């Protein structure tokens, strides 16, 4: 058994180097396809993060009545926080709201006219972020029942509908594009390996004629396919590592409004994706290519 594995690996190694041109072509195809797949994967991850960020922008804002006591407000806050649909609740005082408003005007370079007001016209507010923007019903119902504490709840039905329609469409489109790219990569890699195996049809025929068993014919090719996949994956990851720093800078610049985490999680997923796809497709390609030459 150990002898067989050693034989298969040795033959795979020889096969890879002695058929240099074909191995190079297969590995180069593998690298390009894995880069394509990685690129779309990164775009898809960015897209999803962006959509999630946009959905989180949707929040229920409740104006707190000026007559409400701090105790009453705290009770409402706690009740909201205990609701399963709620992500977070932030209390914003009218002073803070006015300060934010002034800051925004200043950022836009507009003249600040609020100084002419005799009093702060803005209400104290509760800003409620939802886990899912669609689940606003209970929260709104509850708030509308708190007469005397909550004076007004912003109507968000229409906004939610629009945002969710757009984000759902983009999510589905992204997944479909990624799946199509994945299928393309699959077919191109399997066909490239099929060509590489076809170039050695005579070698396989001789093996059959001298009485080699199916396992002795198949496994060296499977190891060779795994080698192509592994080399391809490693080189792809090296290329990604080289472009990662400038790319990340660009991504941060591009998405600077978004608190995106292009951190270790994406890196880990990407590494697993490239290694898994490389090895898997290399092995699959060899398996289906050699199968047609075995004893019928």
């Amino acid at each position, binding site marked *: 058994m150990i002898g067989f594995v050693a034989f298969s690996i040795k033959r795979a190694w020889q096969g890879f180097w002695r058929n240099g041109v074909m191995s190079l072509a297969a590995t180069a195809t593998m690298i390009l396809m894995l880069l394509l797949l990685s690129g779309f994967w990164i775009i898809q991850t960015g897209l999803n993060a962006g959509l999630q960020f946009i959905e989180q922008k949707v929040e229920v804002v409740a104006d707190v009545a000026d007559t409400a006591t701090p105790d009453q407000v705290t009770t409402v806050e706690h009740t909201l926080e205990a609701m399963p649909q709620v992500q977070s609740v932030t209390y914003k005082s009218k002073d803070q709201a006015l300060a934010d408003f002034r800051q925004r005007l200043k950022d836009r370079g507009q003249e600040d006219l609020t100084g002419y007001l005799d009093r702060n016209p803005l209400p104290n507010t509760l800003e409620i972020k939802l886990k899912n923007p669609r689940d606003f019903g209970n929260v709104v119902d509850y708030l509308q029942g708190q007469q005397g504490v909550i004076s007004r709840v912003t109507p968000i039905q229409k906004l939610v509908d629009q945002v969710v329609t757009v984000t759902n469409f983009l999510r589905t489109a992204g997944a479909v594009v990624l799946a199509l790219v994945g299928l393309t990569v699959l077919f191109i890699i399997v066909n490239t390996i099929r060509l590489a195996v076809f170039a050695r049809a005579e070698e396989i025929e*001789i093996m*059959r004629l*001298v*009485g080699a*068993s199916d396992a002795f014919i198949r496994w060296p090719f499977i190891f060779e396919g795994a080698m192509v996949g592994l080399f391809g994956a490693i080189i792809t990851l090296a290329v990604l590592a080289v472009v990662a720093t400038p790319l990340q800078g660009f991504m941060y610049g591009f998405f600077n409004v978004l608190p995106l985490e292009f951190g270790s999680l994406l890196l880990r997923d990407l590494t697993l994706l490239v290694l898994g796809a490389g090895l898997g497709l290399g092995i699959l390609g060899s398996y289906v290519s050699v199968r047609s030459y075995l*004893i019928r």
Partner: protein
Amino acid sequence: MPQLAGDPPLAAPAARTDQAVLALHDVTKTYPNGKVALRDVELVVPEGDFVFLVGPSGAGKTTLIKLLIRDELASEGQVLLDGQDLARLPRRAVPKVRRKVGIVFQDFKLLPTKSVWENVAFALEVTGTPGRRIGPAVDRVLRLVGLAAQARQVPTQLSGGEQQRTAIARALVHDPRLIIADEPTGNLDPLISWEIIQLLLRINEMGVTVLMATHNAEVVTALRKRVVALEDGRVVRDEVGGAYHRED
């Protein structure tokens, strides 16, 4: 496939062809496209025989050889190799049966990137022969075919005759019961052809059965061995000491 002892229907034909390396009984081969390549072929080759298989192109010689190495299965009838019915052989047992047959082709079928020595060793490596037994076995057959000095050369550095002798060495390295040679001299000039025939005769004298398909009338007529003539898928002549053409 293990046979139960005392199983009369299976045991009978095996006993009948006890001494035969290969036996075909009423074999017909029809290809999926409807072409009938062999009709009712009856052929028994005893151990140690030397048989010329002759006949025009398309007579069924290649099909017959494909049946013998179980590249194709007979549509009707029985093909027995060393007593084993090839149609009843489970898939995984096919490689072992093929090792009992050494096969030589007109176009040599050598691997161009491997040396003479490696081409012969390849047959042992891919059948799982332990490494320590490969070296002596390869050296032995290379001496037998007279290629010990060319062991490190690759096929493109060899003459046609030397390439064919490499192929014969590869066919011999498993110690086969039977050598099948399909037009082994088809690509060689007359002098070199005789060298190859003499090598096959020597191998036959060592006890290996030889079945050689050929168009080489001069060789067949000169040697007066057993001649089996195929025509349109039928055996039209089977005579010991025959010539290439019918003589009556």
